[in-house]
């Protein structure tokens, strides 16, 4: 299990770095969503199903939706 944990962890860090450094906002949000999804996986490995399901619904789903809606209101990725 440790191998999987490390692999997921590295993926999380990579997607976080991508979310921070991405040039386009939408890419950044997608990377953030990906990070959340991978975190869900990590939570499942660590035997926290309650947290995992909440993170999946809230962190990966709704948070991204909120960000994208806000971005849409500013006229997309133009800036």
């Amino acid at each position, binding site marked *: 299990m*440790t191998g999987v*944990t*490390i692999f997921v*962890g*590295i993926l*999380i*860090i990579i997607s*976080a*770095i991508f*979310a*921070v*450094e991405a040039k386009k*906002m939408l890419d*950044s*949000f997608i990377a*953030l969503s990906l*990070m*959340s999804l991978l*975190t869900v996986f*990590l*939570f499942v490995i*660590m*035997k*926290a*199903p*309650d*947290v995992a399901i*909440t*993170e999946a619904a*809230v*962190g990966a789903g*709704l*948070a991204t939706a*909120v*960000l994208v*809606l*806000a*971005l849409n*209101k*500013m006229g997309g990725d133009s*800036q």
Partner: protein
Amino acid sequence: MVYYIAFILIGVGIYGFLTQKNLFKHLVSLTIVDTAVNIFIISLGYIEGKEAPIYSKYTPIANFVDPLPQALVLTAIVIGVGTLALGASLLIKVYEKYGTLDVEQIATKEAEE
């Protein structure tokens, strides 16, 4: 192990906050820091070989990881999304007022006023 992941993620979040000029990225960094803290807290409750803290057919008697950190993280996640939504709506207003989300451009516009 997971500790290191959480610490590096906190670092990535703070780094993004310090270097990025787009305000949206600040919000993204904040979310990353929140997630990192959540991972850290959950990892502090994990015990190898034990099960998820739910009494069920498969675990009829207690053989559980620490449930309290999980309860705390549940709270923290919801607080995080509340802050995120409020931040996003503030950003819409920032964009409406200044026409940009770049920190430096906003600073020059502020100075002009």
